[in-house]
């Protein structure tokens, strides 16, 4: 099980990723892409949390 975020950076990343994946205007397209191999329809919190590690490894600054 993915551990909860514990650092301020984790909190920042998860909050942003949550909004990118779960908020915003939806104009349903003819295809839905997935993130890291998981369809967005099935993306849950665990994927969002695990994404944090990948984003950090990529050295991406947000």
């Amino acid at each position, binding site marked *: 099980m993915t551990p*909860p*975020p*514990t650092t*301020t950076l984790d*909190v*920042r990343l*998860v*909050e*942003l*990723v*949550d*909004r*990118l*994946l*779960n*908020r*915003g*205007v*939806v*104009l*349903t*397209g*003819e*295809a*839905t*892409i*997935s*993130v*890291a*191999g998981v369809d*967005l329809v099935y993306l849950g*919190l665990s994927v969002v*949390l695990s*994404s944090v590690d*990948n*984003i950090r490894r*990529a050295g*991406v600054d*947000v």
Partner: protein
Amino acid sequence: MKLLLRAIVAELDAGIAADQGLRTVTAGSVAALASPWETRGVATEADLLDHHRRIQAIFERAPCLPARFGSVFADEDALRRKLVDREPILAEQLVRVGHRCELAITCAWRDGGATAPVESVPASSGRAYLERGRQRARVEGAREQRAGEIAARLLAELAIESAFVRHRTCPRPGVAVSMSALVTRDEIDEMSSRVVRLGAELSDVTTVVQGPWPPYTFAVSE
């Protein structure tokens, strides 16, 4: 060519992102800004953050409604058909929230929100198992109550119209409150200062303010 939707802007602002390689599709008073998307079904985390950066760049130039990441259209005609269907509500939302900024306020438990002491020892009997469940429920209930108190203090401090603030308590492990506040650009510094000031008084949580972001939480299509 497939297109990945980035944001909705007013038709008058349709040309603002031409230098970023975005395609523009218009319908009445609104325009959709989208990026060419290769024929692939899987995105990376970098693509996700690139989505944010592109929307942020649009938002710095004109009011916009950010698009949720992930909608791909076969071509401009397919995007236009969807845009036409939603044009009235998108136009109304653009006027109402498109120029406002989202501040993301997060209060994270300083102790991580751990309930480990309750679960660390295996139950030796059915009674112990039930007692553990009750104890866990008490701990979680106390967390919920405290998170509610924190949210109430934040709401009082911000004093924002209820339509422009959303929050969740204990939305995930480690987080007491996740709040989104919709403010004008003129209000950003004042609102951020209020939250930081209150956060300094809250000893059991770390308070983080992010933004200004495009109004992700307040842009919906239904």
